[in-house]
């Protein structure tokens, strides 16, 4: 006897097999390879590679870039999402597309934009040189490129949520006597805090991991303008596999920590997260 559910059990089994197989081959296996390659010569060798001055400088630079880019994008992202979701104006859909631009543009192009603007042959190049300001092949360029690439993460996370929530609660707050700042701090922010935190996590993970755009503006100066992803490439091209994979492991760990943190948030605050959507 065939039951109507037999079919779906078979289908379900197949779907599970495909999904797990896919995740295993394309996600877990490479991740495992990164860690095993880093530990190929033992833990000590991997740790030594991380203590190398160039590696330390790359880690520091990456942290500095993220520490500047993420807070700035936090502010930009909240402003943009606020504007798009709480106000009506002409050109709104154009603005939304612009926010998405970094997603659709190749990161290399994102980097080149800044070289074209601030590089020696660029529009502002001569002026910058005369005033002794270095942007390209220096920290400012790396920060700019990182901001550009990671701009959409927070705004994208907030816009659907804030649009869905509407402006009713803000209007209610105002009629109850709240100032603009009170309304933002006590009504808007609590309603978006989980999405905001999630956006910050994603933004940070990408800011630390960005390769393409940063590669164009950095100049690959060892110990100076190499971020962690660039340092990995340099080491790899030098056949220093253990070093390359040791630094790569750090980046992979960052991803794992981000994911764990996110899952923890979702698990711990599931009720609250559900409650911030329309009831």
């Amino acid at each position: 006897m065939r039951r109507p559910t037999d079919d779906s059990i078979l289908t379900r089994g197949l779907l599970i097999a495909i999904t797990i197989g896919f995740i295993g081959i394309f996600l877990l296996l490479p991740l495992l390879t990164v860690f095993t390659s880093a530990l190929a010569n033992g833990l000590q060798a991997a740790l030594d590679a991380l203590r190398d001055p160039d590696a330390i400088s790359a880690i520091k630079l990456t942290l500095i870039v993220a520490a500047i880019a993420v807070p700035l994008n936090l502010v930009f992202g909240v402003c943009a999402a606020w504007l798009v979701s709480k106000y009506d104006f002409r050109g709104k859909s154009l603005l939304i597309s612009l926010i998405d631009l970094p997603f659709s543009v190749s990161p290399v192009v994102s980097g080149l934009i800044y070289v074209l603007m601030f590089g020696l042959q660029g529009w502002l190049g001569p002026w910058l040189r005369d005033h002794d300001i270095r942007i390209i092949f220096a920290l400012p360029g790396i920060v700019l490129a990182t901001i550009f690439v990671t701009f959409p993460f927070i705004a994208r996370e907030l816009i659907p949520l804030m649009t869905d929530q509407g402006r009713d609660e803000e209007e209610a707050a105002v009629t109850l006597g709240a100032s603009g700042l009170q309304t933002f701090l006590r009504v808007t922010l609590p309603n978006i805090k989980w999405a905001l935190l999630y956006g910050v996590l994603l933004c940070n993970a990408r800011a630390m991991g960005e390769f393409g755009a940063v590669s164009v503006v950095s100049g690959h100066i060892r110990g100076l303008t190499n971020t962690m992803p660039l340092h990995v490439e340099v080491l790899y091209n030098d056949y220093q596999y253990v070093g390359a994979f040791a630094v790569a492991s750090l980046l992979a760990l960052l991803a794992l920590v981000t994911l764990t943190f996110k899952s923890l948030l979702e698990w711990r605050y599931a009720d609250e997260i559900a409650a911030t959507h329309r009831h």
Partner: protein
Amino acid sequence: MSLVVDSITKRFGRFAALKGASFTVPQGAFVALLGPSGSGKTTLLRILGGLEFPDDGAVRFADMNWLGVPARERRAGFVFQQYALFRHMTVAQNIAFGPSVRPRRERPSRKEIAHRVEELLHLVQLDGLGGRYPSQLSGGQRQRVALARALAIEPRMLLLDEPFGALDAKVRKDLRIWLRALQERLGITTIFVTHDQEEAFAIADLVAVMNAGVIEQYGTPQDLRRAPRTPFVAEFLEQTGSAPN
């Protein structure tokens, strides 16, 4: 302390939502704004609450230029059609919101606010529910929380936008009797938006019938029933059933 609405016009782009609406509300009266969907009721109410600004016309309240008073200083208790409760706050925190955002000099102490919240919970018959979140309440309970929250600011007027719109007929009827009794006791000038003729006539001292951005007729339920002044009013009252009650 009467409220005078004088030739208010409001355009959204090229569309005129209000085309010169005028009426006067005596101090302490209960007025129903009655009209079909899209006639401009919400727009008019939002103008009175300071959430929208008219293109033309004037509003005077207690001899103040009401349009010159910012929304947050009007102390107009606004109850939204969808309640607009703060979803991340408990019922008690919702009600305490108004008093707790006052400037420090005028802000009551924590204890006073807590006491006031208890009083209001009792007033709207929600004793013991202060710790719940809005999502854990029924529609009628949310409705009363929204009202308690608006009352917590000691409002100078109450603006209610189809507050019973989402409720079933039985609850609607109970709540409107309760609301009217409460309003009479507190003596607050109240404007109540509805598109239900029966509800308007049952609850209000005065009814303003709106159509396409103008007030077609304004008077007591008896006046309206006895002498509809325009064909629209006659038809609107007839259509929605004007059985005397």
